């Protein structure tokens, strides 16, 4: 594993140099690296551990290859490979190609590093590498992306410093940072210590996967980062958050560490579930309001992270599997959606829903990608997204957690609403006259999108392979494994067969098609031939309903409280304090420096740190 990581890190410098020479070769090299590491993931033996450099005395950094690392590694490499393929054409219009490629390669390398880490400090180091380069990538986007990057950096740093504090606490107490050792020792600690450590570690995951209250960076960051990178952000980096959450709820044995409450769920996990519920509600309701399609899906990420968190936090065999499977599905689906958006923006240069329309006639394959993506994201059979949502619903109902279930139901039905908005506004309806000459995107952008479509449909019909990986993870984490066969998913409250559902859907479609063919053929008329209450129109740009699609629903929660505004208030408060200090205490002269320096020194001597 250290060898693979070394290859990846050195390879990324190589990618940089190659891209400087010829950017296509650079992208191909990047793809090659990713495919190579994808292949290597299957050759590693689960359970091997290696030690690498030592940073602290007596403490070697360790890398451990577990089922969990394999699962998340596979997700993030599928995402990475498809996005890199996409770049073959997409990067053409981008400035700073070399740096872009270099950072992407580094991010993939450090992401894998996080998944392989066997101790908390190594994890932290890879985490920070990933964070640094993703911030640098975010600010390469639209004009307001600098501000977004700052926002992203601040909230991620809140998360990672809290994590670092937990690391210090653990080091202070045990003198070791290897996760396995800590896990064995921690369950006998005082509850305050346990709470503090786990909440601080979970904070990193919460910040990264966009759970309330640290979700505010997602909207601006996803909205203004480079389009292809948004896919990486949603599919790869936010799954790091999910990994971190798995670490807090399952690797640290929350069942043994905390008293068990209603439904057999540890009290710590209840806190997470409540956060997940709030995230689902906020994500859903805010996504319905957005006019920028990338921001819309960014909020849907908030909501889906809530699902993942709820599923994981139930610590039940179905729920945990549902959470993991949802992480997989959401990664694939959001990459599909963001890639199709990137394709749309590549051609139309806008991401506002109400500035587009009717692109289905120009970009049908992109449309199909988006369609399959949203069917999976919204959790509608026969795509794979439904399977994970089903598992989460089942566990919530089985345990009698009705409030959480209601939130999950709102999120699920609400997702029909928000995913339909870009579908209707961007792809369906009247083609805007300024987009008359838009063409379908080039072939290398289509290939990854369509491959992802096939993957989603395949795992929707035959979820067995993914479920096998998930059960392996569950076994490793001492959770009872999920019962399933290749196509049947069983739970204690009933089962269902994905293949039967798909077959019946096909049968239904065929019946409908036969009926369709039997009866008289319809005449194809253009979209400008419309029922207009008898009036004839000439400007059909205005005849497309896409502005404030759900205005009547938005009106119901217009005056909602906003966390974002609260944070802005804090920000302004600190800025004001800074200005105040600046005005009163700061003067740019050597004597002032000397004065403050001596005051601080005296204070330190006085309290004798």
């Amino acid at each position: 594993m250290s060898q693979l990581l070394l290859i990846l890190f050195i390879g990324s410098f190589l990618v940089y140099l190659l891209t400087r020479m010829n950017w296509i070769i650079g992208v191909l090299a990047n793809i090659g690296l990713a495919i190579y590491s994808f292949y290597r993931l299957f050759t590693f033996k689960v359970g091997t551990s290696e030690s690498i450099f030592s940073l602290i005395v007596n403490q070697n950094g360790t890398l451990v290859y577990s089922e969990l690392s394999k699962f998340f590694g596979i997700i993030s490499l599928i995402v990475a490979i498809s996005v890199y393929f996409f770049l073959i054409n997409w990067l053409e219009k981008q400035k700073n190609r070399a740096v872009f490629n270099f950072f992407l390669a580094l991010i993939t390398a450090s992401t894998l590093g996080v998944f392989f880490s066997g101790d908390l400090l190594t994890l932290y180091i890879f985490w920070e590498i990933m964070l640094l380069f993703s911030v640098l990538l975010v600010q390469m986007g639209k004009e307001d992306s600098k501000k977004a990057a700052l926002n992203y950096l601040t909230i991620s740093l809140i998360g990672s410093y809290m994590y670092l504090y937990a690391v210090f606490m653990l080091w202070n107490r045990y003198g070791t940072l290897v996760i396995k050792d800590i896990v064995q020792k921690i369950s006998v600690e005082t509850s305050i210590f346990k709470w503090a450590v786990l909440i601080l570690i979970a904070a990193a995951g919460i910040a990264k996967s966009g759970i309330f209250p640290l979700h505010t960076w997602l909207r601006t960051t996803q909205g203004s980062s480079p389009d292809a990178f948004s896919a990486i952000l949603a599919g790869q980096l936010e799954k790091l958050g999910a990994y971190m959450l798995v670490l807090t709820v399952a690797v640290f044995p929350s069942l043994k560490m905390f008293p068990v409450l209603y439904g057999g769920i540890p009290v710590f996990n209840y806190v997470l579930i409540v956060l997940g519920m709030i995230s689902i509600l906020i994500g859903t309701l805010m996504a319905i309001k957005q006019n920028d399609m990338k921001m819309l899906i960014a909020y849907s990420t908030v909501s889906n992270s809530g699902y993942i968190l709820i599923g994981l936090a139930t610590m039940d065999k179905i729920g945990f599997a549902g959470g993991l499977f949802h992480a997989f599905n959401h990664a694939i689906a959001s990459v599909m959606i963001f890639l199709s958006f990137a394709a749309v923006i590549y051609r139309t240069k806008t991401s506002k829903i109400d500035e587009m329309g009717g692109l289905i006639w120009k970009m049908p394959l992109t449309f199909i990608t988006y369609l399959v993506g949203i069917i999976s994201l919204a959790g509608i059979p026969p795509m794979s997204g439904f399977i994970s949502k089903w598992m989460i619903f089942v566990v919530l109902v089985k345990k009698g957690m009705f409030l959480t279930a209601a939130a999950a139901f709102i999120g699920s039905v609400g997702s029909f609403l928000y995913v339909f908005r870009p579908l209707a506004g961007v792809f369906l309806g009247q083609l805007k006259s300024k987009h008359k000459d838009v063409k379908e995107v080039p072939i290398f952008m289509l290939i990854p999108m369509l491959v992802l479509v096939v993957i989603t449909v395949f795992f929707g019909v035959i979820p067995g392979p993914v479920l096998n990986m998930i059960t392996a993870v569950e076994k490793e984490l001492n959770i009872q494994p999920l019962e399933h066969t290749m196509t049947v998913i069983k739970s204690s409250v009933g089962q269902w067969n994905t293949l039967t559902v798909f077959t019946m859907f096909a049968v239904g479609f065929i019946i409908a098609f036969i009926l369709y063919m039997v009866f008289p053929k319809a005449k194809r008329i253009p979209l400008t031939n419309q029922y207009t209450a008898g009036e004839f129109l000439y400007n059909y740009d205005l005849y497309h309903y896409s502005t404030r699609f759900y205005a009547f629903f938005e009106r119901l929660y217009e005056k909602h409280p906003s966390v974002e505004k609260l944070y802005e208030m804090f920000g302004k408060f600190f800025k004001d304090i800074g200005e105040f200090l600046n005005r009163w205490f700061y003067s740019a002269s050597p004597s002032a420096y000397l004065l403050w320096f001596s005051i601080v020194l005296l204070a330190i001597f006085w309290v004798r740190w």
Partner: protein
Amino acid sequence: MSYERTIWEKIADNLRSRSMWMLHYCTGCGAVELPPSMTSRFDMERLGMGPMATPRQADIFLITGYLSVKTLRRVIYTYEQMPDPKYVVGFGSCTINGGIYYDSYATINRVDYYIPVDLYIAGCMPRPEAIFEAFTELMRMIRKGEAIGWKKYKENYEWYKQNQLKSLGEVYVHDEFHE
């Protein structure tokens, strides 16, 4: 006047005669006679008829009264949006020969000069009884395959278009109100 039909078309015509969905183009005073024919006293629904909101779903097109030049353009546009087979019923003397507006510069005198009309109901305005008489007659005509206005419109499209152009100038006006 009827045409050769296959057995399927005969069955289809039979069904069409029992389920006539109408689009009532309420331009004139005739519209006021429709509510009584729809509600409890006469109850149009027992013949399988019902009002429809859009021309796409409708089978019969009721022109309830005089047509001004402006409304005629819309009538033609709407008529062409209806799916085949479609039937037109003209209400009242205004649609037959202009009625009391025969000398108006703004209303046309006979509808069948511009679109084919399968059936006229005389009267100013026709009472619901007359309307029902007309509908049963229309049902008979559809069953017998005599209501072939839509075929005539297709066959004599040139003639109808020429008449429309003669009276209206351009049929679909493109001015500041249609932007």
